């Protein structure tokens, strides 16, 4: 027997913010109620079955004009892996210079997603910032 559950999910596709009641059997959605348009359904189903999030943080830079560099994932990652990625990057040290768009970590935690720099950080002491 699969367990039957219900979850309330606020749709974020548009400013209406409909509250959807999602009926599930195990991890599968069987019914979505309470939405006022069809666009929200895809979001709501993903949100209960496999929620994904953009990941972004900063990494420590050595020898740079700035002590940290902001980074992001090239694609969204599973929501429940955000803290794992954060811990992984916390141990990383990157030597300046860093160019915007440069890969900082390939295939982080085997998620199939790269971490890239979202700004450039020049070398400390070199003429001109970045």
């Amino acid at each position, binding site marked *: 027997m699969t367990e039957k559950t219900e979850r309330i999910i*606020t*749709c*974020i596709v*548009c*400013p*209406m*913010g409909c509250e959807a009641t999602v009926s599930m059997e195990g991890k599968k959605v069987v019914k979505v109620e309470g939405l006022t348009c069809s666009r929200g359904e895809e979001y709501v189903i993903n949100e209960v079955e496999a929620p994904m*999030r*953009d990941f*972004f*943080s*900063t990494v*420590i830079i050595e020898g740079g004009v*700035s*002590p*940290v560099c*902001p*980074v*992001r994932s090239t694609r969204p990652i599973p*929501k429940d892996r*955000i*803290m794992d990625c*954060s*811990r992984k990057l*916390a141990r990383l040290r990157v030597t300046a210079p860093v160019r*915007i768009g440069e890969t900082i970590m390939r295939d982080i935690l085997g998620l199939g997603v790269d971490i890239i720099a*979202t*700004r*450039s950080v020049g070398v400390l002491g070199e003429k001109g*910032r970045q």
Partner: protein
Amino acid sequence: MNEMTEDVAVVGGGAAGLAAATRAKETGAERVLVLDRNSELGGILPQCVHTGFGLHHFKENLTGPEYITRFVDRARALGVESKLDTMVLRLRPGGEIVAANSPDGLFKIKAKSIVLAMGCRERTRGALGIPGERPAGVFTAGTAQRLMDIEGFMPGKRVVVLGSGDVGLIVARRFAVEGAKVEAVVEILPYPGGLARNIIQCLEDFDIPLLLSHTVTAVHGAERVSGVSVAGVDEKGNPIAGTERTIPCDTLVLSVGLIPENELSEEAGIVLDPLTGGPVVDQHMETSVPGIFACGNAVHVHDLVDHVTETGMTAGSSAAKFARGELETLRNRVRMRPGSGVRYVVPQIISGDRPVTVYLRVRNPVRNATIRAGDIAFPLRAARPAETVTLEFTERRIEKLIGKAELEVGMEEQKPVD
């Protein structure tokens, strides 16, 4: 005193200023100079490391640093000049700017037109008057963000955030992702200030409690914050006796509102709108002083940088035209006034014969409402005070305005949402 001559001088090198400067160059201004007190261009965006920028302007989901880098690079490629670490001290009608920095000392700029893009400032604890001790560990959201994401310091380990606007929510998430414990986000209103998306992705994802109809009533701690008192509030926002409790924490982050920065504008005699805190502008983003234009958060606090960019581009092209003596004055001036349920409308003056995009803010959350501007009706499915509503006055709609001197923009029917 040294004197420089410019076609367009832009005060502020953030999203608005860079959009204005690049657009002024692109539309023919020869000499364009950006002045900024920070040591790099970009304004607040380099410290906004989250995604969600550029969905409208670039049709891409970018982080703040990525979004602004595109404008910084574009400005450099076009030959926009900049003076950084530079404080603008005075503005005079007629296009004179007095500024100061270390290498140049005090200097004067004669510009054919000026664009004001100073942005906004955060309200502080002083503005709220939160009682209690004065320990270290009380930060505005912007300062906390800067410490974490520009300077590489962790401002605290146990955090309470006051204010549930998007800025507060996003900072709460940054603390959580960096391993801090966010004890609560406290909101004085009965509904959250930020977008539903941010409530879910910044708070629920990290199990951060949201205390609605609550406020911080005291800060405790000798050297460093040791906790804050929070209490429930009544409909008027006054703390309810007996509901007070202490949350132990080492950091209080304030995200309690942004104020357009307009000391320079005021001193120059530019008329400000008390409803927005920014200059009254017309469709060209021209202020009450001819040749001085304004854009971005200096005009009113925007929720999307993409809109800031739009206003900057309008101000930039208008300033370039003015510098060449080609800016058409509005033949017709329709004064926009906020009506029922509307807090403010920008631009405050439109031509009434040219298409224009108008931004407004509602007073309370509404659903299935209609905004009426004279004879023009705009259906509105849903709106909240935190999100600006955009009204497109198209060619066809604008026809209905011909001959009007004033236009009230208000809510036709209002169904408040719980």
